[in-house]
């Protein structure tokens, strides 16, 4: 293992921020894994730390294929993590909205450019990502539809779901999108949580990556446990949003991953002062709970639950 400084940013009163990369094996730049880019992505960094532990073992056992190199960057934004801010500490910009970056531009553009210059060379790019919407997800692999998305490789993670999503204008500055444009096979891995550590889901994700590395001939190891799914491939149309009309105290009545039937109670919204039920959210069709709102309060007109909904024939 080699520990490299991928990018360094100097500050006036703080220690320089170093983006550190851990390189395993040597030779062809096969896989790059990126962890947290936002200050609240603790689970994403944690999952990377578990992956680094595992790769150290594989390297010691000489189970990394000759001529293949793997790079893991657990954290791109330690400055924000250290002060408990989600976005860049001074100007509140989001590094994951700055790719491919610009080395003569503003601070987060420079960080993105410095990191991207190193990681764009890899054949496969994996990012532990978090969603803008806060809530609980079923673990899934996500890709933007750019024309370069590689669904067959995505299935090799053996995650329950692979989700492809239409690209919208603001997506064009994310890492996943730019990796694809630079012809890296890019995958975003979503585990259940962001701000809390979930050991099980981090471990499942690490095993899924190891499984992919085996399938791609980058490591030769035995993966015990973890996911063994035939991934179901979903697009936006297969996710059915259940929206609330009311606002108030929000409580889920189903769990993420639960198979629900049409009409089943998914969540209730109660009056914050008097406790009475304001609205019951019910499943509009048979499906599996893919996403649910997590915060105790909810605004009206919010997609509180998303169901995996498979129309006839699929």
């Amino acid at each position, binding site marked *: 293992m080699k520990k490299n400084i991928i990018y360094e*940013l*100097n*500050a*006036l*009163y703080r220690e320089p921020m170093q983006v550190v990369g851990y390189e395993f094996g040597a030779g062809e730049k096969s896989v790059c894994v990126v962890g947290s880019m936002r200050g609240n992505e603790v689970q994403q960094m944690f999952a990377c730390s578990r992956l680094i532990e595992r790769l150290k073992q594989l390297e010691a056992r000489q189970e990394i294929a000759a001529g293949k190199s793997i790079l893991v960057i657990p954290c791109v934004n330690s400055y924000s993590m250290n002060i408990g801010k*989600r*976005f860049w500490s*001074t*100007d*509140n910009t989001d590094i994951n*909205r700055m790719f491919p970056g610009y080395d*003569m*531009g*503003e*601070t*987060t*553009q*420079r960080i993105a450019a410095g990191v991207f210059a190193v990681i764009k060379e890899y054949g496969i790019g994996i990012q532990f990502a978090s969603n*803008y*919407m806060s809530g609980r997800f079923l673990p899934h692999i996500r890709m933007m539809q750019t024309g370069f998305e590689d669904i067959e490789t995505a299935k090799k993670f053996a995650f329950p779901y692979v989700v492809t999503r239409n690209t*919208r*204008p*603001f997506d*064009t*500055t994310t890492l996943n999108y730019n990796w694809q444009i630079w012809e890296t096979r890019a995958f975003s891995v979503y585990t259940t949580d962001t701000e809390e550590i979930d050991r099980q889901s981090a471990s499942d994700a690490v095993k899924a990556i190891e499984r992919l590395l085996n399938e791609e001939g980058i490591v030769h190891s035995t993966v015990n446990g973890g996911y063994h799914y035939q991934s179901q491939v979903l697009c936006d149309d297969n996710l059915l*949003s259940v*929206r609330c009309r*009311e*606002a*108030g*105290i929000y409580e889920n009545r189903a769990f993420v991953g639960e198979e629900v039937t049409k009409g089943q109670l998914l969540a209730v919204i109660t009056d*914050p*002062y008097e406790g009475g039920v304001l609205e019951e959210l019910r499943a509009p069709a048979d499906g599996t709970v893919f996403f649910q709102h997590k915060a105790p*309060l*909810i*605004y*009206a*007109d*919010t*997609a509180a639950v998303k169901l995996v909904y498979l129309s006839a024939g699929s």
Partner: protein
Amino acid sequence: MAREIKSELGSVCEVKLPIGETLAIKRNRILPVDTAQGKRKRIGIVTGIHGDELEGQYVCYEVLRRIREQPECLTGIVDVYPAMNPMGIDSMTRGIPGFDLDMNRIFPGSGDGAMTEYVAHKIIEELSGADLIVDIHASNIYLTEIPQIRINELHSDVLVPLACHMNVDFVWVHASSTVLESTLAYSLNSTGTPTLVVEAGVGMRITKAYGAQLADGLMNTMRTLGIWQGAAYPAREPIVDARADGVVFFNAPKAGIFVPEAKHWTTLERGDVVGRIVNPLTGDVLAEITTPERGILFTIREYPVVDEGSLVGRLLKR
């Protein structure tokens, strides 16, 4: 000519908040009270998409004050939307509080997305079809801008002539970029509602002179559109720049404290000092920022703390 005007207070959309409150994006529609036939011209004055940009608050007030002073001159519809992001304005938050989302990156929104997308969708529905929308921004808390209008090159044919009535100092026609497609202005311009984006002043402040300048410009523009019959205000001729490399960006080469040297909206010669980045701990000058060529400084940094890369100024090459 109308003798009286009326004011209709309404809202673009309403969203229930969790505890005993409804969020409403408010609109004041001012129009003449008469029975004249035919479709009236309509202008929309929009501001407060970024909750920390407050220069537009004064502009809205000032335009309404002038209309109320000479109600007989109003012949069209003036819609004023001073707070597109009311919770942001209330809480000194640039984005939408609770979502940490830049409201000017979610357009055109959608009728069945998150609450924020629903709001964006309703805003587009509301503004579409106006003869002109003017979206007033105030840079951010870091930079001061000379009153200017920014135009995506894709829409310059329609917008540059309109911008020239607005009494701004500078019209910047810039290259299009995909990410800007999620702004309010892009969404409206690309669907046939002409929309001008004004940047003036600095975040969290009101610069009264700029506000008055923009109010003059809006009255002029309304006059041109046939919405206002009052006397013309003298409108300055803006510098219109559409060169691909017409603007020099000054980014801080070092982290430190930026101390400006040059004055805003003055012509600088090649080699003039824009400002210095200093270290208050050691007393060192860490960097001196000088101009590579002659030009006018139209952006200058207001907020002293800079990171490597922070923008400290922009120069329009002359």
